[in-house]
């Protein structure tokens, strides 16, 4: 159980970091296109600011908490289904992670009058990328689960 928890927390940190990088990249790319003086050091500094900001300075719940809940629910459902259906775990958890993140980036705006609160999810490409981060997290989670589970 403890190992599962450590794996889960590691996955949350990974997915959260990828989420934040996507958020940062989306506005840095726009600023670059608009001729603002951005370079790699500005990008790195902005990623760091966003890691802190999205966890401690937002109006929304901390992104780490949001992703924990999203992936936690997705993996729990996957776990219950896997007890009944014999499917390759790593692929099913990947599907579950992708479904969770897809739900987050599509359902969340729908609940608040179509307002996109996460800059990284503004475009279809961004939504696809964030869905893929969920798939990656789920895949790694399934890959690293103890055999008996």
């Amino acid at each position, binding site marked *: 159980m403890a190992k599962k928890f450590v794996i889960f927390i590691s996955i949350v940190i990974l997915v959260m970091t990828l989420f*934040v990088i996507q*958020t*940062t990249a989306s*506005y840095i790319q*726009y*600023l670059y296109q*608009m001729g*603002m003086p*951005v370079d790699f050091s*500005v990008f790195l*500094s*902005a990623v760091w*600011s*966003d890691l802190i*900001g*999205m*966890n*401690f*300075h*937002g*109006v*929304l719940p901390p*992104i780490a908490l949001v992703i924990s809940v999203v992936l936690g629910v997705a993996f729990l459902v996957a776990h219950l289904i896997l007890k009944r259906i014999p499917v390759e775990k790593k692929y099913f958890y990947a599907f579950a992670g992708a479904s969770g993140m897809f739900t987050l980036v599509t359902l969340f705006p729908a609940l608040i*009058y*179509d*307002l*996109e*609160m*996460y*800059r990284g999810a*503004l475009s279809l490409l961004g939504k696809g990328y964030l869905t893929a981060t969920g798939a990656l997290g789920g895949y790694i989670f399934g890959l690293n689960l103890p055999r008996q589970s």
Partner: protein
Amino acid sequence: MRLHFLFPLVFILFAHAVISSDSEFKMETLAEGLDHAWGIAVVSDNEILITEGVGRLRRIVDGQLDPVPIKGIPPVFLYPDDLTQGGLCDVALHPRYNENQLIYLSFGEADKDDPSLNAMTVVRGRLEGHNLVDVQQIFKAEPPRKTAAHYGARILFLGDGTMLITSGDGFNYRDQAQTLDNHVGKIVRLNDDGSIPDDNPFVGIKDALPDIWSFGHRNPTGMALGNDGMTIFEHEHGPKGGDELNIVNIGKNYGWPLITYGLDYSGSLITPFTEREGLEQPIKYWVPSIAPSALAIYQGDMFPDWKDNLFITAMVPGDLRRLTIIDNKVVGEEIMLSELGRLRNVVNSTDGSLLVATDGPDGKIIRLYKD
């Protein structure tokens, strides 16, 4: 000599005393039960027009709210019945209203081809008793958007008879505030009939809409003409922090979202930059946000201390800000009416009193006056 260091201190104390010299005023409620009051237009000494977000235009006559709304108002877009933003917004009188009875209304209007979309629209019509007649559209923000937020929608007539209309960034469309082929995050200037003045800054510029006056705005909901008849003050909602008070000049770029003093609601940066050559700076910004909703410059004689002061209604936490401006710089800020909750609008009345609208489903019009 040793006491010279006290001079700045004395000056600061004196300045503070001037700034916070709270003129005694009384309050009376002129109307209540208004469903999201937004725009106020003072027609005469005894008549006031008020818009309600739900799409009603109301009238206060001789201090009494007329129970019958004015008929003929176009249907407004409410998504889905949410009135935190949008609906029927501003009302403005034509500069020669006494001759032609023309009024202007701004509101979100559903797109005729795709009802899931909407656009900030301005119409004008003639007020005949309890009816608005000869209604014609004079402006529609392009392109229509999916969101029901950040409309701007403030109307201001200038001394030359032209009008400025603010158009917000629609929340999801912020990047378009920097391009001139749309009305996202723009202030436009039109003639009173909706035609485009020849001396607008982007007339004849390739790929630019000729009605644009300034750009790079977020959600500009307040605008007022200075008592000099030249200076245009405008404020706009920032994101999380970064509400701005600007002096708007022809053809200028106000920077959104390339520069800002605010953060995104998620807590991420919107940009690492707060200034850049070619992008205008606000004369004041607020961190944390105050959610400024409307702006008036005091013109009356009832409160001599308030002459030329800017009054801004704020919705977070809810108060009235009195700003003292000297040489286009804000030198003082007094917080008033912090007990009334979210405030939506402030205008000058004909007798020198101020009218303030409270926000919400049970909105009030409150008059600040002294005997």
